């Protein structure tokens, strides 16, 4: 016989169980809520940690970029990073762990990570004869350079809890890149200080203007695109090809080098007695690529072209009569007139690169006609003509360049007058002498300290009648450009056959950094 539990007792027990269940549920919910709040409190700490890490990584990138811009782009030649700093004549820095921010409250300056892992070569910043102007992430010397920085973020001011948030490293990979702006589509590159452009010129590509703060009247070019570094206010008024308003590209720029300018080691190198061979590039838009003999001798178009033994070198002062007329160069020293024929035809040997120093008063570039123009010259290798004039030598001054007929052999014409002294007129009158109304010149013009005043000759005998000149190539200059007024037109078009020009064209160089590690 079973013992019977009183009904009242069962009711009380049931109520108690229900109460306990209710209390349990409420307690569990409350505990969860409390735990959630605690976790949220922890999240704020994590947020701070993450923010510090992001900023530290950004700081690391700044350091990496600054180092690249200061030291590596300033390199002069192929100094190995393994044996010494770029261009520093072997000063040993590759094994040190140097405190950089000593004394600063900003940085835990225990050490900067060792640079022993850096190998390879420094990159010439301006011009390089040889190689391919391309890019490979694995081996792209001499046009790119890869350095891997182990930029340990904790050394860049991170001060979090080491136990909760252990130390970590941020790895950057830095590339040095370079390219010819003109061949890349920047067909009119206007460098500081005074690249005023007047006249009727249409650029079927981009205009790059490093000094857009000139007066509005100092810029009349029309182009498909217009871009400017943005370091100075824009006061010129870009125009589209059709003449309408052109929206300025506001894409961010990176610091680009177009030559080495500063004297070596000034204010930079703590031990100039040891490292005396590297220079500081300029990133403000100056141009110094033709003859940087005073600041970076091995890194200029003239020096690189001159290093080639096949290059014809002449001086307009002493070389008399013919120099190498059979190949297309004549220099008359008595008058200072040089005649250059880019392509004489299939019966002659190609004219190589030409370097003329001083003494010219006039340069005639005689192009081609007939089948030589259409069927032979376009397929000959590119070449460069470099003329540099030291204002102190003879008093002769190159004032006239005649572009006669048309030219379809790819060509670079580099003109530099050493100073901007007002004692002489630096302007060169470029006179197009064409028997057709719309001559085409495959030509890249680089002018330093040389204003160009371009005009079209018109005459019946000989017949010169150019109305529209097509320049396939581009112009890079730091001096004023004067083009003919409408209805005459000067049109700059993109050079698409870049085979030989890639090796000859002066280039801009810049640094890129990529975050390759975790963050």
């Amino acid at each position: 016989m079973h013992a019977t539990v009183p009904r009242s007792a069962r009711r009380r027990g049931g109520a108690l169980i229900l109460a306990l269940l209710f209390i349990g549920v409420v307690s569990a919910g409350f505990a969860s809520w409390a735990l959630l709040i605690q976790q949220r409190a922890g999240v704020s700490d994590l947020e701070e940690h993450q923010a510090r890490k992001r900023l530290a990584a950004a700081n690391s990138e700044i350091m990496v970029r600054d180092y690249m811009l200061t030291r590596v782009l300033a390199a002069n030649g192929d100094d190995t990073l393994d044996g010494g700093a770029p261009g520093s004549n072997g000063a040993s820095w590759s094994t040190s762990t140097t405190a950089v921010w000593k004394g600063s409250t900003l940085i835990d300056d225990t050490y900067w990570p060792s640079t022993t892992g850096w190998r390879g070569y420094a990159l010439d910043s301006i011009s390089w004869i040889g190689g391919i102007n391309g890019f490979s992430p694995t081996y792209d010397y001499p046009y790119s350079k890869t350095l891997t920085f182990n930029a340990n973020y904790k050394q860049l001011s991170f001060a979090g809890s080491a136990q909760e948030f252990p130390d970590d490293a941020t790895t950057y990979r830095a590339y040095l890149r370079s390219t010819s702006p003109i061949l890349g589509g920047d067909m009119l590159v206007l460098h500081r200080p005074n690249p005023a452009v007047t006249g009727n010129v249409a650029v079927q590509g981009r205009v790059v203007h490093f000094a857009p703060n000139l007066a509005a009247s100092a810029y009349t070019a029309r182009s498909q695109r217009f871009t400017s570094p943005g370091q100075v206010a824009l006061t010129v008024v870009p125009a589209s090809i059709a003449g309408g308003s052109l929206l300025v590209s506001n894409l961010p720029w990176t610091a680009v080098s177009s030559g080495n300018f500063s004297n070596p080691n000034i204010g930079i190198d703590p031990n100039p007695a040891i490292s005396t061979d590297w220079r500081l590039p300029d990133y403000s838009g100056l141009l110094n690529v033709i003859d940087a003999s005073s600041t970076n001798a091995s890194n200029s178009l003239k020096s690189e072209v001159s290093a080639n033994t096949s290059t014809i070198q002449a001086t307009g002062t002493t070389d008399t009569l013919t120099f190498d007329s059979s190949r297309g160069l004549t220099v008359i020293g008595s008058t200072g007139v040089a005649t250059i024929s880019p392509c004489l035809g299939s019966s002659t040997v190609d004219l190589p690169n030409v370097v003329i120093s001083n003494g010219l008063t006039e340069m005639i570039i005689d192009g081609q006609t007939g089948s030589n123009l259409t069927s032979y010259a376009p397929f000959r290798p590119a070449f460069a003509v470099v003329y540099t004039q030291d204002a102190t030598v003879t008093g002769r001054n190159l004032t006239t360049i005649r572009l006669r007929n048309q030219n379809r052999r790819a060509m670079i014409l580099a003109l530099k007058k050493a100073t901007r002294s007002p004692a002489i007129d630096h302007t060169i009158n470029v006179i197009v002498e064409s028997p057709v109304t719309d001559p085409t010149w495959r030509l890249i013009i680089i002018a330093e300290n040389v204003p160009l005043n371009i005009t079209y000759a018109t005459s019946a005998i000989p017949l010169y009648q150019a109305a529209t000149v097509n320049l396939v190539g581009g112009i890079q200059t730091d001096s004023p450009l004067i083009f003919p007024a409408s209805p005459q037109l000067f049109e700059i078009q993109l050079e698409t056959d870049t085979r030989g020009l890639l090796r000859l064209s002066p280039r801009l160089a810049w640094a890129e950094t990529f975050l390759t590690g975790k963050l």
Partner: protein
Amino acid sequence: MKSRRPACTPSPAYTLVEILVAMSIVALAIGAASQLSLTQSVAEDVTQKKSFAVNYAENLARIWQLAPRDLPGAYLLAQPNSDAVSFMSHYFDSNLSTSTVDNPAALGGGGDYGFDAYTVDRTNVRVTWSPAPGTTSNIDFPALRLQPARR
């Protein structure tokens, strides 16, 4: 005829003592929960403020690194509060475009002449915020940026 009423059997109930004990326990639990809730609410509030301050400081540092011409006024993503309760303020220390040479060799560094850090700008972004009325706390974010010609 007399109606017959069923017999009245008293239903069982909790005693007064039991009820008082139960109510006391519940009251204690509610009190503790309330206290904890208050604490958690304060913590949540502090968390929110700190979160805001961290984001604010990071934004300031990032904007400074982007280097617009006029800092900080027009470029801030949000204006700080300056009332007594949710007080928040910020400042940049002097932007050090140092002209003096941090000579690594002279300071005991090795032969590495590189990383002459004086070529970069540096600053410290400090955001002061208030976890509770009458108290302040700082968040300091050091930041570097390239000098103008190199940006």
